[in-house]
């Protein structure tokens, strides 16, 4: 199976994702330039973190208009696997591939820190190697990770089991004190209704190796590989 990592001008986690897929997960992977539109023969597209186009207007607001995003939307519509990490998540929201919006962090600061999230729905192609309720230590690094959606939207997310991860304490308690950025309902990651598009603020590629102390994030990528293998 083949992964593609999209490179927008200003992406800065593209190389990290590429490295983890190629050297840790040991799967084939290629870069996709933001002006390319060809996604054929790919099984999973990753929208990496960073500051696409400088994020000058609003995070992800310019990236959604880049040529590659039309192809990503078509790819997702056909059931292709898409994962947006950090800025990638913000772009997916702006592009309407996932519901909701991002606000500035409640503390009005950029936050780079190891935090804990709880796997909420482990029946997805992204999370099938986790236990339901498993607590994962995965770092965040963002200025706009304060997820928001209106009450109807939130109800829909919950009814459809679309919340993939929630911020929690080391012991797994989901409450305000474990919420680093003010995200509604402690939401750290969501999937779309069809379950083939994931957006998450924490960086799984930063916790994929024992060298860096933790492998909790690695299993997101491995879950995808396993799911695709089973599907074949």
């Amino acid at each position, binding site marked *: 199976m083949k992964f593609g990592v999209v490179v927008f001008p200003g992406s800065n986690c593209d190389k990290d994702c590429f490295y983890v897929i190629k050297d840790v997960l040991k799967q084939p992977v290629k870069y996709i330039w933001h002006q390319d539109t060809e996604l054929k023969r790919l099984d999973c597209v990753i929208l990496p973190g960073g500051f696409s186009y400088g994020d000058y207007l609003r995070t992800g607001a310019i990236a959604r208009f880049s040529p590659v995003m039309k192809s990503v939307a078509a790819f997702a519509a056909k059931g292709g696997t898409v994962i947006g990490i950090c800025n990638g998540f913000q772009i997916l929201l702006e592009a309407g591939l996932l519901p909701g919006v991002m606000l500035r962090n409640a503390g009005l600061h950029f936050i*780079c820190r190891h935090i804990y999230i709880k796997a909420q729905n482990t029946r997805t192609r992204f999370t099938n190697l986790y236990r339901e309720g498993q607590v994962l230590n995965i770092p965040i690094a963002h200025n706009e990770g304060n997820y928001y959606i209106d009450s109807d939207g939130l109800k829909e997310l919950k009814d459809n089991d679309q919340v993939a991860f929630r911020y929690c304490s080391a012991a797994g308690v989901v409450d305000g004190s474990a919420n680093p950025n003010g995200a509604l309902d402690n939401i750290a990651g969501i999937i779309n209704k069809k379950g083939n598009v994931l957006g998450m603020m924490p960086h799984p590629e930063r916790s994929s190796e024992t060298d860096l102390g933790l492998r909790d994030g690695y299993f997101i990528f491995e879950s995808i590989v396993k799911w695709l293998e089973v599907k074949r």
Partner: protein
Amino acid sequence: MKPGAYRSLGLSDQEYRHILKILKRKPSDTELAMFSVEWSEHCGYPRSRKWLKILPKTGKYKTLIGEDAGGIIVDGLAIIFKMESHNHPSQVEPKQGAATGVGGIIRDIFTAGARPIALLDSLRFGPLTQTYNKYIFRGVIEGIQFYGNCVGVPTVGGEIYFDKSYTGNCLVNAMCIGIAKQTELVRARAVGLGNSIMYVGSSTGRDGIGGCSILASHEFKEGEEKRPTVQIGDPFTEKCLIEATLEAINTGYVAGIKDMGAAGLTCCTSEMASAGNSGMDVELQAVPRREENMEPWELMMSESQERMLVCVKKGKEEQVKKIFLKWGLCASVIGKVTNDKSVTIRDNGKIVARIKAHSLTRAPVYDMPYKKPAHLKEATKFALKNIPEPKDYNKALLKLLAVPSIANKAWVYEQYDHMVQVNTIVLPGSDAAVLRLKGTDKAIAATTDCNSRYCFLDPYKGAQIAIAEAARNLVCSGARPAAVTDCLNFGNPEKPESFWYFKNCIEGIRDACKSFNVAVVSGNVSLYNESPQSSINPTPTIGMIGIVNHVDRVCTQNFKQSGDMVILLGRSKEELGASEYLAEAHNMIKGSVPHIDLKLEQAVQKAALEAIEKGLVNSAHDCSEGGLAVALAECCISNKNKIIGANIDNLDYNIRSDALFFGESQSRIIISCDKASVEKIRKIALKFKAPFRVIGKTGGQVLRILNGAKELICLPLEDLYEEWGGSLKRKIEG
């Protein structure tokens, strides 16, 4: 220009006469502008160069010196690094000043062909009790995170100090580290007759005109408006410029390249021609601009950010241009390499400047007079017996832990992305940052250090201690000290007392580097750091990198488990002079700086390193500001997810308790280890003749410290953490 206009450009009468002699005619406006920036202290080092020459250029690793940044070679890998100041711009406009400081130092690294992998920032401000200092502090942090986070280079370490000498003149020293295969390095020169000179990156505007000459090379005076001399940074463009530049260099079509930093086009044209022993003929009409009606001298002086000058091999211009255009950047051929050794600048074909490149780049060298300041006699007078001991040692320790220079800096470093590029093994908050080198067993450790109070009271020893402490921090992380970059921040060099500090610090750095067998591979001089409020403490910031031979032998400062033995390597003396404790508890910046014996320092460091490399050590932490008690507290609480107490009941030095707990005796390292490793470490210490003593044991919910049989400190870990961990946030936001 009006007669005498050279003075407003920062040139002296003497320098103007010198220019007349070189040219054998009156300079044009553009030529005058070019001399003024290139001969400024910031670019040409006329006042400091004589002394910079004495710094050692060789050490235990093969060095690369003489370009924008220097470096060392380790197993065929070039590690390029440099530290640079952006003090005055940050004082005038803190956010943009700090941001462009970060941008500038990153360009110095990738212009060599190296990929930037880490940033560190050494920052100094006036006390946070003053609102304006708080504004500067917040602005600088905002600027560093704004630029560094976007550009995708992790900010992994540094230091922050507060002292009233920096009120009115903060220090922002940014350091960047990059790596490249030795074979991929490029030089900053114009070579190959007929090769093209290509301007790439952002367009040119009127921002930053006179930044290096008028702003950086003069002290602040009352009521001046210097904001227009500060540049504006665009980290998104810089990120694209990094990728495009490295891609272009990779084609093999780049014969030379240089970052347009201070002195902009003037610096690039003259220094590339001078380094290549060639010449350059440039047409200004081809320079991409963002403002209309710019005069030639403005174009030559502008310090607009995110620009580079590239010497492209003849016939390969289109291929190189394509890369920069792909990244949304400007690329324009503006001239050619000549062999007349002159820099010729044209505007619409008409020559507006023609100067021999060497005469621009070889700024005059001044022999500055120096004189020991009279105030030192009084300042170093200090008798410990006149200082009362604290009544309550618990309170004294808690107070010290909350001093902003000592307190936990998470409020700052959590605003920096310190993990991007997935190399950061030791995150900010330990003695040094450690980054793995993917594809190898090795890692790089990096630190910045300088205690400017020591340098104020004794510049020679203070500078030696800065080197010793930097090396000690690296050793505590499991790294072998490898090479140095320095950022020399001082007051007005035209004052002999100020220059005396400069000279003595340089001599201290030289002697300490020789002792450690490390070279100074790059650096920067920032003089004129004075304002109506104060003259800064002499601050020769040391950036040092070290090599960890095996990634799995990396060490951090916090205790790892209960029941470990705590060992002190080194000797505690009855010294309180120049200490943070004396400043905090007695409001005194006085006395002799701690004694430094470089032989003892080496012994302690070698013993610690061997023990760490053999896998015998669970934690290692150096004793610095705040002394032994503060260092022990940090060992207990610096990993907030794993706070571990300690019982330190075997200190017996027969010295006053305040000196024992808070004195800043040098060459001391606290290590913790399994009980079974104690004897092995003792043998290693004996081999290197390093003083060794088991001083206690880890475990429990308190930090308890005895002097002899007297229990003087016993504090719950939560109290320690509350003071140390929350202090900075309270002082800034509270």
